């Protein structure tokens, strides 16, 4: 029995690590730019395809592909921020929603056009080898993914806390106008933050490629949970995203085992509703963070 409990806990935590990584970029972009990026999942999908092609065409190992996919995602983030997001920052929320939603639909359909709706997957034998930790069986790739996810989230957290750029990002998140008055190049911060958000979700995309197949709609399917994680953790809170991601992973695992797989989502949504009733700003959110400040 204890063995099963441990196995469930570990499986849940490992799944939660990926949820956290998917959500960190989303919450960061929201916290700083006050834009909810509905195309976040499509960035992940593109990264998955990129990894797939690198693996099948050039035999690039997915963990090496990180070095290629991440810079590409960064550039793609800068390009979208400059082309689309920047132009809607002062527009009403509805315009921002439509821009990112349209981008999501566009990217999905381009992917459909070029790559069809077929699922593509890669087979990396060592990725599904198993590590035995006491009675618990852990898949190598899930373990590595978890470690990379947590280290990355911690690194981003440290960057925000201790570097000048990090402080500038936090300042911009708190008050755009004052940040600008203090000499922060706010436009550059926006661009950087959006690029960082894209790179983070792309990292999640690369890491899950040895585990899951990709098709043009995969991003949207996976990222749904990221929106729950971001709101649960508190919009804009990095720590919140990590804690909420892990919590949802664990809740899902236990609910699936004890109550049935069909209700696992129901259970975490119930948890979500209860938390929001008690703590309307989420676990680590500040009240009022969702209100747009005056530029």
């Amino acid at each position, binding site marked *: 029995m204890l063995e099963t409990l441990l196995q469930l806990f570990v499986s849940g935590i490992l799944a939660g690590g990926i949820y956290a990584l998917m959500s960190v970029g989303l919450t960061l972009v929201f916290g700083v730019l006050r834009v909810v990026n509905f195309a976040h999942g499509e960035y992940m999908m593109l990264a998955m395809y990129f990894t797939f092609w690198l693996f099948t065409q050039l035999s690039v190992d997915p963990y090496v592909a990180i070095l290629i996919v991440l810079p590409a995602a960064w550039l793609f983030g800068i390009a979208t921020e400059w082309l689309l997001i920047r132009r809607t920052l002062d527009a009403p929320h509805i315009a921002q929603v439509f821009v990112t939603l349209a981008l999501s639909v566009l990217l999905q359909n381009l992917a459909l056009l070029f790559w*069809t709706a077929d699922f593509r997957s890669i087979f990396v034998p060592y990725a599904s080898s198993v590590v035995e930790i006491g009675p618990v069986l852990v898949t190598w790739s899930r373990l590595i993914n978890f470690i990379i996810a947590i280290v990355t989230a911690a690194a981003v957290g440290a960057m925000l806390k201790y570097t000048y750029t990090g402080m500038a990002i936090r300042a911009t998140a708190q008050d755009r106008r004052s940040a600008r008055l203090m000499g922060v190049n706010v436009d550059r911060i926006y661009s950087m933050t959006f690029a960082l958000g894209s790179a983070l979700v792309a990292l999640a995309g690369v890491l899950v490629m040895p585990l899951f197949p990709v098709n043009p709609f995969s991003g949207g399917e996976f990222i749904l*949970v990221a929106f729950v994680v971001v709101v649960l953790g508190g919009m804009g809170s990095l720590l919140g995203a990590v804690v909420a991601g892990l919590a949802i992973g664990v809740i899902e695992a236990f609910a699936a085992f004890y109550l049935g797989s069909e209700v696992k989502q129901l259970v975490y949504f119930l948890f979500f509703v209860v938390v929001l009733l008690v703590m309307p700003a989420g676990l680590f959110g500040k009240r009022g963070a969702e209100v747009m400040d005056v530029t």
Partner: protein
Amino acid sequence: MSLKPMLTSSLLGIAVLAAAPATAQETIKVGTVFPLTGPTAVFGTQNFQGVVVAAEMINDRGGVKGKKIELVKADAASPQAAIAEVNRLITQAGVKILVGSTTTAVAMPATQEAERAGVFYWEGAAIAEQITERGFKYTFRVALPAAGLGTPAMDYTVKVVAPTLKRDPKDIRVAIVGEESSFGISMADVNVAAAKEAGVQVVLRETYPAGSKNTDLSPLILKLRAANPDVLIATAFFNDAVLLGRQMKELRFVPKAYIGTSAGHSTLTLADALGDAVNGTFSSSYPPDVNPGGLTEQARADLTEFKRRYQEKYKVVPSVQEVVGFVAGWSLFRDVIGTAESAEPDKLREAVMKLDVPIGSYINGWGAKFDAKGQNVRSFATVVQWQDKKMTVVYPLELATAKPIMLPAPGSK
């Protein structure tokens, strides 16, 4: 040219066209309603190309009662497009016979429009039960309804797995899992009912969220491990079939037989995703390459000719969907239009009701006999097993091309 001769000549032309007697030039128009673009275009195109080859083959053999089949192509990329295209075929092209539609999403509106206009609709592969449950007069389906993809799993368990394990079916424990969609639930219902009838014990029945949303199925597998079934029957689309296959291996859960019900378990790329671990997995499937020994002599010849023609024309080896397309076209041209008094919907309906084509008469082993609702009762699914990373027919025995391997699966307790 002055006006008068021009008028005369064109009038003459019209007269010739209108009064064309039953010469070799006369054709029977058949509209094709398949999704050729958009997300379901892959299967749609494969079905369509199968129909095209069927039309060419019958025309080269002298056509149907001396008339050539003329296909009028439409692209039913979405339900909306299906409605527009069916109406275009009926009103502008004057088509009274339609063949389609690959997906249920296209078939439902397309058959509805056809029925309203009193046009004959020959459905190939669309799978939902409702297609033939609406009391339509002119809609007929050649392939099996959804439940037909589920039944072979339990059949196989009772008739092959149990004897091979030297056990009475009543001592066999099965677990039935699947995604929570109408497809997954109806597959599970069919198998639970069949298990009850055969006295097989169902030790676990569980569904999980549908639609590629699962990132971790280990809780489900831990439950399976605890329930310790001999046979696992699973309904999963590709994403979950991959996840289930990988995580079962990782968590060392090995049932004696693992049987999927089509969908993800019968997808060619499953072998790419699972590598050698795919071998030994069973799945119900539309008949792929059946054993020609189970076919009539004529069907064997048809099969050889179909394969040759398809490869020459499209440069690929035809597989399951192409074959279903061909069977839809072939049965319509040769057996329905070929035996009907005329190509009018009412006469075609009469011909369909009288059909009695024995099993083994079509290239995938099917035959044709229709029930009052318009469903072919002589189409069925086969059980395939992944052997050497290829799907090989192992059941029904007369169509099997190989014996099952890895039964019980190595490493199972």
